[in-house]
């Protein structure tokens, strides 16, 4: 059964499958946080959006997270979830000064961004938010790629090939990637999931320079760019 079987509108099966898999993956440990911590991050992002009126809480509410988030993590999650236009370098500096490592910070940014993504989609098609999974066992891998370096973002990133070596070749499919596709590369699993959503929701990246490429049936590239441009303008995202 489709993840969005209750939708009144036809949802592509490949998109539904990826959304379902990404929600389910929260029950697995990440690179820097365990499953309970990752679910607590997702739950806090939702709570911030309920408080801001940007999401509607499901009937009965959400289960309480099994672990509390440190105050510094909670601050990053809540601000990024509901007010990306206000999320500037000082927000990053406060997070680092508050004790988050760059790696932990990037994993939080990745989870919040993907959680908002799934929730905006559900709200857009008019179905209740999909339930968060229960935490699963296991510890984070804590693997940091040695090729990560400080480029031009706040956080270290994996450089494009050839500088990024074999790791960049694997992560970016052997091609240079724009910054938006490399931003969370300090945590490669977050990068893979971010790109996975990009390809199924926006378009397959190799087709990005084909002006009339149509990824969604009955929905032109011009119509795509109207929504993309308007949402990014509301979020005041210069990139």
């Amino acid at each position, binding site marked *: 059964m489709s993840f969005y079987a209750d939708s009144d*509108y*036809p949802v*592509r099966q490949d*998109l539904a499958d990826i959304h379902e898999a990404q929600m389910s993956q929260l029950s697995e440990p990440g690179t820097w946080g365990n499953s309970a911590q990752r679910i607590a991050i997702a739950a806090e992002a939702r709570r911030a959006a309920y408080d*801001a*009126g*940007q999401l*509607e809480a499901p009937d009965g509410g959400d289960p309480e997270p099994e672990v509390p988030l440190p105050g510094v993590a909670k601050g990053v999650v809540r601000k*990024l979830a509901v007010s*990306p*236009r*206000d*999320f*500037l*370098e000082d927000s990053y500096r406060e997070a680092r000064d508050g004790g988050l490592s760059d790696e932990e910070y990037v994993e939080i*940014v*990745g989870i*919040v*961004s*993907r959680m*908002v*993504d*799934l929730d*905006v*989609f559900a*709200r*857009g*098609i*008019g179905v209740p938010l999909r339930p968060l999974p229960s935490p699963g066992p296991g510890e984070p891998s804590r693997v940091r790629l040695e090729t990560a370096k400080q480029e*031009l973002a*706040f956080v270290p990133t994996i450089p494009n090939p050839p500088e990024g070596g074999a790791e960049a070749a694997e992560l970016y499919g052997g091609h240079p990637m*724009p*910054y*938006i596709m490399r*931003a969370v590369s300090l945590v490669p699993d977050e990068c893979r999931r*971010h790109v996975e*959503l*990009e390809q*199924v*929701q926006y378009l397959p990246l190799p087709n990005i320079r084909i002006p009339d490429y149509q990824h*969604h*049936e*009955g*929905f032109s590239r*011009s*119509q*795509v760019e*109207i*929504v*993309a*441009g*308007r*949402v*990014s303008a*509301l*979020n*005041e*995202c*210069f*990139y």
Partner: protein
Amino acid sequence: MQPDRDVGVPGGAELLAFSDAVVGNDRAALDEARRAVAAAIGPQAVPAASAIAANFSKNDRVANGCGIPVDEMALKRTEEIREQLGLNDYRSARNTFRHYA
């Protein structure tokens, strides 16, 4: 972009209203905007527009959260449109201009 302007694309006004509503806090407006998109373009446009809104909601947070810059070549290519739309006034523009002053 002005939501009430004719953008010259079928369903353009309905898509602008939907974009505002899906990231806004007026559920009744969103429900109405969703119905308007379906009526103007077709039912398939609702999940398509939702997927794009979701995707760029993600990307905007990734971009601002990680402080990534627009690369220099794209910056030159978009000089006129950025000026017209006032994009240089966004506070996140600093993530780019701190490198390419």
